[in-house]
């Protein structure tokens, strides 16, 4: 099946800075695809190249099998939801949404009908004649979404659309976005620096780092089988055990990751289950998070390990006490050298 989007050997250089370094990936039609990474990792550059706002220094961009590298954004069947919403203040909500059909020459009554249809989809039909300035952040975002979908693009690009919203609203919008995507069935490419967002919404996630894709996998595979220390730390905050500590624990020198919730906290010298790996250290701090607690333990080898325990799993001990950490050998994930 032809990928909806394909990047072939794409690089983007700004002078000496490699914003994107020989990136190749393909996104399947109807997929909810996330570009995840810290700022400056290249994920936004990647999005802008797909949209057409920027031109790669080398490589090709294909949309539905066609080479669109040299085609301007107004000729691509791709639409974008911007981080600052980019609603035109001199048009009301309905006119904003109807902008796409307007520049295509569709008549005024027809495009108003289409706009209202789209506003129904995002449940804002009642706001059709309001000015954008009168809307809240969440409402503006939904208008931006409606405006981007009205052209029925093959691909919808979203550039950190939920960044300006508060937590509760963000979670609501995540659910709503996912529902809309599944309802319409078009490909979504979603840029975010929030790994929780990427994991909960996407079918597949590409983790960006310094202009390259470090790992491309489903959320589950990313979480349970990170390939490098960077991915392990960035996605799900696993502990990365390396160097001296790794030698002590496994006998070998290779770094590995262990998820915080896979670690048990025992009293020093307590008996270990079969096949368990362990190490000892001093309890630095316990952070209370409601349903769970995060125990920060400074191991004898010097590295701090974080264990996440469900509430009530272990009796609290005073700071500075000696504790024993244990986990099953099956749960460790060997990491490639970064």
């Amino acid at each position, binding site marked *: 099946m032809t990928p909806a989007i394909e990047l072939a050997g794409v690089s983007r250089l700004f002078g000496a800075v490699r914003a994107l370094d020989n990136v190749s990936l393909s996104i399947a039609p109807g997929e909810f695809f996330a570009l995840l990474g810290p700022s400056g990792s290249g994920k936004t550059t990647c999005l802008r190249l797909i949209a057409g706002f920027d031109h790669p220094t080398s490589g090709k961009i294909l949309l539905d099998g066609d080479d669109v590298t040299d085609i301007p954004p107004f000729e691509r069947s791709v639409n974008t939801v911007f981080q600052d919403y980019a609603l035109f*203040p001199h048009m009301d909500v309905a006119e904003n949404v109807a902008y*796409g059909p307007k*520049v295509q020459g569709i008549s005024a009554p027809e495009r108003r009908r289409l706009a209202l249809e789209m506003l129904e989809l995002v449940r804002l039909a009642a706001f059709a004649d309001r000015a954008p300035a009168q809307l809240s952040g969440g409402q503006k975002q939904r208008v931006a979404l409606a405006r981007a979908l009205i052209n029925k693009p093959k691909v919808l690009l979203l550039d950190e659309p939920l960044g300006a919203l508060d937590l509760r609203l963000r979670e609501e919008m995540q659910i709503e976005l996912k529902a809309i995507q599944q309802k319409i069935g078009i490909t979504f490419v979603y840029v975010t620096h929030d790994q929780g967002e990427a994991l909960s919404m996407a079918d597949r996630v590409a983790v960006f780092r310094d202009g390259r894709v470090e790992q491309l996998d489903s959320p589950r595979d990313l979480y349970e089988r990170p390939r490098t220390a960077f991915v392990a730390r960035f996605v799900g905050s696993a502990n990365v055990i390396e160097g001296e500590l790794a030698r002590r624990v496994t006998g070998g020198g290779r770094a590995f990751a262990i998820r915080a919730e896979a670690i048990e906290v025992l009293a020093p010298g307590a008996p270990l289950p079969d096949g368990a790996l362990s190490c000892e250290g001093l309890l630095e701090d316990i952070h209370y998070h409601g349903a769970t607690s995060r125990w920060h333990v400074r191991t004898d080898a010097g590295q701090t390990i974080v264990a996440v325990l469900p509430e009530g799993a272990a009796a609290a001990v005073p700071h500075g006490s000696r504790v024993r950490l244990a986990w099953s050998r099956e749960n460790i994930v060997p990491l490639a050298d970064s």
Partner: protein
Amino acid sequence: MRSKGGRDWNAASFGQKVAAFAGLAFLHLPVWVIVIYAFTTEDRTYQFPPPGLTLHWFSVAFAREDIWAALRMSLSVASVATAMALVLGTLAAFALAQGRFRGREAITLLFVLPIALPGIITGIALLSAFKLGGIQPGYWTIVTGHATFCIVIVHNNVIARLRRLPQSWIEASMDLGADGFQTFRYVLLPQIATALLAGGMLAFALSFDEIIVTLFTAGHEKTLPIWFFNELFRPRERPITNVVAVSVVLITMIPILLAYWLTRPREFESK
């Protein structure tokens, strides 16, 4: 915070207020004096207070054909210069708002020079050029001089507005299928309309009032300021000169105020 004897940080002292208002009054009084003089019955000296008030000089001035001719000339020159400035200044503003490119600093400097260097430099430079090229001073040399600084005025107004426009608007418009021309028409033009209008009006007012450069480039043509300048040294015509002065102030006040009203800071410009 230790308060200095209960000082209110947001209130000026009496002395500061007096100084501020005095400064403002200083700026306004001379022109108001002219207004009074326009109504005086005394026509030989500068006597103050005026012995009597009359509207007589207004009717005399309105009957003077040379004043009307000069006024027509000024209006015509200002219109043409402003029209040229609107086109050329806007083109330049769009180019210079794009972002960094080679030579941008030099071009920006070029656009500052016409107002950074005093008018006399512009005037004598243009005159030198005309002499060199064997061009006779006349209507078009006046327009040329005016258009040069009018371009700068329009450019400054438009580029200030463009710089406040988020790049994402242009990208959003193109993303939705509008090419450069459509984006300009539907998104950019509505946004810079007020800046264009304001710049145009300022340019018009400046051209209408211009004397410093015009004296060098005018030849035999007479704009209203040139008429006025000649009258400065003719004591007999004093009251009529006053009338013209008051009229000029009133006429140019309108575009100035309009331009200010159009470009005053607003709440909803972006987002």
